[in-house]
């Protein structure tokens, strides 16, 4: 299968030429095949969220190239990239309009990549379709069409955000710790929903998570990042045989190796 996402020789430095200079990516390359469901783990500051923000065009990068579906998206504005990409963020408030109703939000997501002109915002014949898709979330949202999204719980909002991101069949789905702000039970529900939505519609997905168990059980490929590098990239059977304990060992090995080189430097 073809490569859907090709990141080549990516360079990114924050606060360049200042005392706070932070060189994050120094020639990072990542290829993702069409249909891959990649889980991304790594310590804080490893560059997971930055990577997702760079792909979606929110943060500019210094050097390198990113191809999505064969198109060079290096200098494309964020809103254009958004036409190809669906996103769910850690903060449930990010992906929905709080003072508008569930139905209004869903109608807008339904109209993604179409013209937002002067036809009615809510199309009567779409309401049933929207209700059906909401009922699949089994959170009772199908009976709350006229409720303002700001009044929903974080979990309900995040489930909606997931549905809204996937509805337009994007080439790529970017999930940035979208379960981190939820309680364990809701987090489990959203995890199942994610799995269901991604596998049903076969969307290529990058999912950042801190939950090692979810990182192993979900998806077909796992990437571990550390200090702007990909230090582990496994898939298939090898990934399935992983355990959280084994991952922790691998992870601390990497960290130790880094600490050692730091110590050598200062020795």
């Amino acid at each position, binding site marked *: 299968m073809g490569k859907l996402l090709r990141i080549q020789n990516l360079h990114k430095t924050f606060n360049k030429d200042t005392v706070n200079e932070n060189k994050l990516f120094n020639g990072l390359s990542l290829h993702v095949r069409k249909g891959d469901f990649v889980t991304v783990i790594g310590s804080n500051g490893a560059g997971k969220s930055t990577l997702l923000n760079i792909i979606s065009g929110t943060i500019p990068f210094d050097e390198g190239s990113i191809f999505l579906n064969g198109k060079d998206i290096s200098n494309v*504005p*964020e*809103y*254009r990239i*958004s*036409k190809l990409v*669906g*996103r769910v963020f850690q903060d449930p*408030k*990010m*992906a*929905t*309009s*709080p*003072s*508008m109703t569930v139905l*209004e939000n869903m*109608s*807008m*997501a339904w*109209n*993604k*990549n179409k*013209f*937002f*002109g*002067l*036809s*009615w*915002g*809510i199309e009567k014949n779409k309401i049933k379709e929207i209700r059906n898709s909401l009922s699949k979330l089994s959170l009772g949202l199908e009976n709350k069409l006229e409720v303002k999204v700001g009044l929903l719980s974080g979990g309900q909002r995040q489930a909606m955000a997931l549905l809204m*991101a996937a509805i337009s069949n994007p080439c790529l789905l970017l999930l940035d710790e979208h379960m981190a702000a939820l309680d364990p039970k809701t987090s489990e529900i959203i995890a199942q929903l994610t799995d269901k939505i991604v596998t049903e519609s076969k969307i290529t997905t990058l999912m950042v998570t801190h939950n090692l168990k979810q990182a192993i059980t979900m998806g077909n490929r796992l990437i571990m990042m550390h200090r702007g590098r990909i230090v582990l990239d496994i898939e298939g059977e090898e990934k399935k045989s992983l355990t959280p304990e084994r991952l922790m060992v691998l992870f601390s090995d990497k960290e130790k190796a880094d600490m050692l080189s730091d110590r050598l430097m200062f020795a």
Partner: protein
Amino acid sequence: MIEGVLEQGFIFAIMALGVYITYKVLNFPDMSVDGTFPLGASVTAIMLVRGADPLFACVISIVAGMAAGLATGILHVKFRITNLLSGILVMLGLYSINLRIMGKSNTPLFTEKTIFSANVPSIVIIIGLALLVKVLLDIMFRTKFGFILKATGDNPNMVTTLGVDIGIIKIIGIMIANGIVALSGSIMAQYQRFSDVGMGTGVMVMGLASIIMGESVLKALPIRFGTSCALLGSLFYKGSIAAALKAGLPATDLRLVTSVIVITALVIYNGGLKMKFKWGFNLGGGKTVTHSKSA
């Protein structure tokens, strides 16, 4: 007097509807309104003096207002100047532009034909126009574009994820708002048979005052406010100004009265009157645990 209050109230209501789009929907405090109101008046005055059709003058005023809105929008979106400053800069420039349009600081309209020359009571014409603008806006807010406009003010990030350029939406919103304000200025000039470069001062604050007053009052009612609060608010606002004058305050105190009214409306809206004194310390012997069972 009541009729005068209603007439002026509804003319200002049109302006308040424009301010509603920027201030309430787009969350953009647009100061250029203080310049587009007299812009509409100036364009109308000069066109009527030259014998143009009054309705055509209204349309051209709207176009002029939209052009000014475009300038504000571009300053903010493309040149990344803060929203408040973009509006102030355009307002400043419009003062000179209005002087250039009229050639002098004011233009009286003595015998020129206006929209009020028809054999219909002016109050009917004004209420008709105000309701027309309100209904058109209400319809717009129910369209896909209206949804995106609301979402842009509510959560711009979401609009970006929908693949829509928030910059363009903001610019269009500001253009519509300023077009409506210029229309209000045009009607005002024809109503008072007179256009003056200084007539825009404080217009934006009046618009805000109207919206906030409308919201404070309508908050108690179980209906959706929307554009109605701008409409009703301007009537309340004009009414309270008239009442203050009637009570014997000199016209020179008008600005102070406006300012006090806005403050009062804001205090009521923020629930400040319900404020209770809370002692931040314990006088001793009192319970420090709030839950009675664990005390």
